[in-house]
């Protein structure tokens, strides 16, 4: 089981990196969906009491939500605003990848300083979650299209969820529901706003959204 969770974690990091280097919007959404499915599997493997009924329920919910519902919403949005590609991100793909690698290093440095929580099977969980969070933030920072930023936000949220797994047994459902709520509502609201943006500006490029400045 431990091997499996290590594998899954590595795969998640790999997916994040892949996302950083990907230029197709639909591709990005699909990758995030894949990452979401991996996350859905993870609760089952990460704890000693893996197949706990609540863990099962959580895994199922997560799998559905992150793997299907949200990607569907996003794909729908992409169809609505009729764009395919992320043009010229603010940081190019190769530098993004390098930065991603660097951030993985940073997250390992940070997690070095934190004692491994008891009851966790994989010591990789903390650094990987931190790395995912940072790469999500990197995507939000470096991409121009509003939709890609939402994808970045999803990755960021995936990282947080990953982190939450470390305590999914000890603390009640409230936190996990928090993640779901956050992702769901945030994406829902963001989707509405993106829709408005597309209608108002005929584009979802954030280059148009820089009129408020000093």
């Amino acid at each position: 089981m431990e091997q499996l969770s290590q594998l899954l974690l590595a795969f998640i990091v790999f997916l994040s990196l892949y996302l950083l280097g990907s230029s197709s919007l639909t591709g990005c959404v699909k990758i995030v969906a894949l990452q979401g499915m991996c996350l859905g599997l993870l609760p089952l493997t990460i704890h000693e009491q893996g197949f706990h009924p609540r863990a099962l329920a959580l895994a199922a919910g997560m799998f559905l939500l992150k793997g299907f519902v949200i990607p569907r919403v996003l794909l729908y949005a992409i169809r609505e605003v009729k764009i395919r590609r992320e043009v010229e991100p603010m940081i190019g793909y190769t530098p993004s990848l390098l930065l991603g690698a660097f951030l993985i290093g940073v997250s390992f440095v940070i997690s070095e300083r934190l004692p491994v929580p008891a009851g966790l099977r994989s010591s990789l969980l903390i650094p990987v979650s931190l790395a995912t969070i940072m790469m999500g933030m990197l995507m939000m920072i470096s991409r121009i299209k509003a939709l890609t930023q939402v994808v970045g936000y999803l990755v960021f949220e995936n990282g947080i969820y990953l982190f939450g797994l470390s305590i999914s047994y000890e603390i009640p459902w409230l936190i996990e529901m928090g993640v779901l709520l956050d992702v769901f509502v945030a994406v829902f609201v963001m989707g509405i706003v993106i829709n408005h943006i597309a209608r108002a500006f005929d584009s979802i490029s954030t280059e148009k959204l820089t009129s408020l400045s000093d």
Partner: protein
Amino acid sequence: MIYLFLVGVPFVAGLVALAVGSDERRPWILPVGCAIHSSIIVACWRNLPEPAVSGWFYIDALGLLVLSLSSALFLVCSVYCLEYLRLRQERTERLFTACLCFILGAVSLVCVSRHMGLLWVGMEAATLAAAPLVHFNHNEKSLEATWKYLMMGSLGIGLALLGTFFLALSALPYEGHGDPLVIDTLLTRAGTLSVPWLKGAFIFLLVGYGTKMGLAPLHSWKPDTYGEAPGVAGAILAGVVTSCAFLGLLRAFQICAAAGLSEFAQGLFVLMGLLSMATAAAFIIGQRDFKRMLAYSSVEHMGILALGVGLGPAGTFAALLHLINNGLTKGVLFLTAGNIHRAFGGKTMDHAHGALRRVPVSATLFLLGFVAITGSPPFAPFVSEFGVLRAAVNGDRFGVALGFVGLLAIIFIGMATTVLSVVYGVPNKDSKVVHGDSPLMIAAPLVFMAAVIFLGLWLPDWLTAVVGNAAKLLNRGAS
């Protein structure tokens, strides 16, 4: 039970607002809801309710302080809204009214919850509910502001969630004392918490709630949001939502202080406080847009709050006092700024001159509000700002004191230039009169101003007592 009412009444009011069809009657839901909410709080003041739901809900002095402030601000602003919404007939206000109610509910949740997770949920709800307020004007600029607000807010809220997880992790290993994120549990077990995780928790909560609160360098959404939102939304955001975020930070600080990490946390508070003030100073100088100027002023005052907490018990007392004073004064400023904005159809110095001639009462109040917020006696913020200064000097933090005074001076210079140019002078001939002063829309800021002057001259015993108790809660570990 009382907690249920506190949180539930506004939510129900919001739902009713969504359901009611009449544009005439809907706005009345706000003052009625707020009045009920406020009267519940008055009941709370009479006798503090007991903890409920195994310690998940309880209202201590700190929560009571923030909640009372929020409720009062809401009550007065809701009266303002009646007139405001009548003037803005062209916009549908269904969502606006409902979201205001939801914010009040969420805020109540933040204040009464003794559970860090629940608190987070409240903050999240308040953040998201505020987005439609920002977008109320439905133009390109407000859309841009909403987008930025939403992205920054979501990032912050995500980080705060992470911080909450860190907090939970710090409490491991965990052997059945109820929920680990209940604040009282954390406080009683403070000595056994894992220090690195706790530090991490504090950093993430600081960045997360700090983003909501608008501490520099996490403040960048503020000028855009406050600048584009209607004045009343600005007052709510600057007075209520930021105060709640501050409450979240204070909860984290409370736990850190109990665990003996107060120096670590105070250092960060002082750093961010001064950084916020410096940022505000840099951007207020030469600011031509008076609503953006107010936003930076809000950044500054959030900085003062953080700085005050960072300066130990006396500073904490002053900071909590400043929380009230800032909220009330910001109420005056944002509401009157909204009035002036409407009177001139623009919110920059190029559009608005000589407000005193066009909207005399609003302009006078705006001017007084400016004088108050910059810490002149005999207005309330003076008392608290002077308290922060004294805390710095008494604690031998002379460098901090010097920076504090110097930055206050620069900010004053910047604000004065803008405010005087707006208030004084002769209105442009070509800018048509859009709206003059109307009774309800000046009554609200007038009430705030009266409170600001009153508190500047006379701090009632009971208020001092509550603020003092709240400050004591925060420094229990230190003593």
